[in-house]
């Protein structure tokens, strides 16, 4: 079976492409990125801020069982065209990883299917490779208990 989500990462380049075809009409796919309560549901994170517009910004937070903060991400939205694209920065707060730039393109395939292409640009090839290895090193779950502790010491 063909994989629904594809990662294209060429050796020695500081960018990747993530593509995914959805069994959803374009407007529903786009809404999943725009409305805070929907983002919370599929990302499994708290949305503290989400201004989906040009010169907007966002701030997401993942907490552990005792309410302790495991993971925070934030960024600014540079460009926002409804049902078409979102250009934003992404930063994992309190980690040694630099800010990355994300171009999200939303396309209609048919009335009931759509496609998302994420073009992510990293500060360096080494940063890209380190981030690609993160889920490997941690198992799938990024919100690992020790993540914060380890990053604190890395800094």
């Amino acid at each position, binding site marked *: 079976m063909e*994989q*629904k*989500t*594809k*990662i294209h*990462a060429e050796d020695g380049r500081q960018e990747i492409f*993530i593509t*995914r075809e*959805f*069994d*959803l009409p374009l407007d*529903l*796919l786009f*809404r*999943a990125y725009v409305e805070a309560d*929907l983002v919370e*549901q*599929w*990302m*499994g994170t708290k949305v503290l801020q989400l201004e989906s517009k040009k010169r907007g910004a966002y701030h997401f937070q993942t907490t552990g069982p005792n309410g302790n903060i495991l993971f925070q991400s934030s960024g600014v939205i540079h460009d926002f065209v409804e049902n078409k694209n979102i250009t934003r920065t992404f930063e994992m707060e309190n980690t*040694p990883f630099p800010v990355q730039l994300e171009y999200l393109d939303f396309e209609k395939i048919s009335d009931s299917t759509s496609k*998302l292409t994420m073009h992510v640009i990293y500060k360096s090839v080494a940063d890209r*490779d*380190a981030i*690609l*290895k*993160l*889920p*490997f*090193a*941690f*198992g*799938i779950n*990024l919100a*690992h208990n*020790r993540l914060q*502790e*380890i990053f604190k*010491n*890395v800094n």
Partner: protein
Amino acid sequence: MNLRRDVFQAIADPTRRAILLLLTTQSMTAGAIASNFDTARPTVSKHLQILTECELLKQEQQGREIYYHFNPKKMKEVSDFIEPFRQMWDDRFNKLESVMKNLKTGKK
């Protein structure tokens, strides 16, 4: 008993995965690595020994200190280190799809 060490056994343990992550950005001495964990120093040494035996880590003598560094070549042996990254996004997008599908059917 002589257990053969392989990469998969090495990464099965969460502490060892944390050590690997720690060493993706820098090389460190055993002492510096151990200071990142609550685990007793000999336990960390044992983990380092296992990771070294399966060549996920390499040792390098610098003066009197031994530094451990990550060996990315070996990482590639684990089929493809990008696969878990892809899997993470796939899971996330599957969730998105099901959340939005429920929304659609709930509305109608």
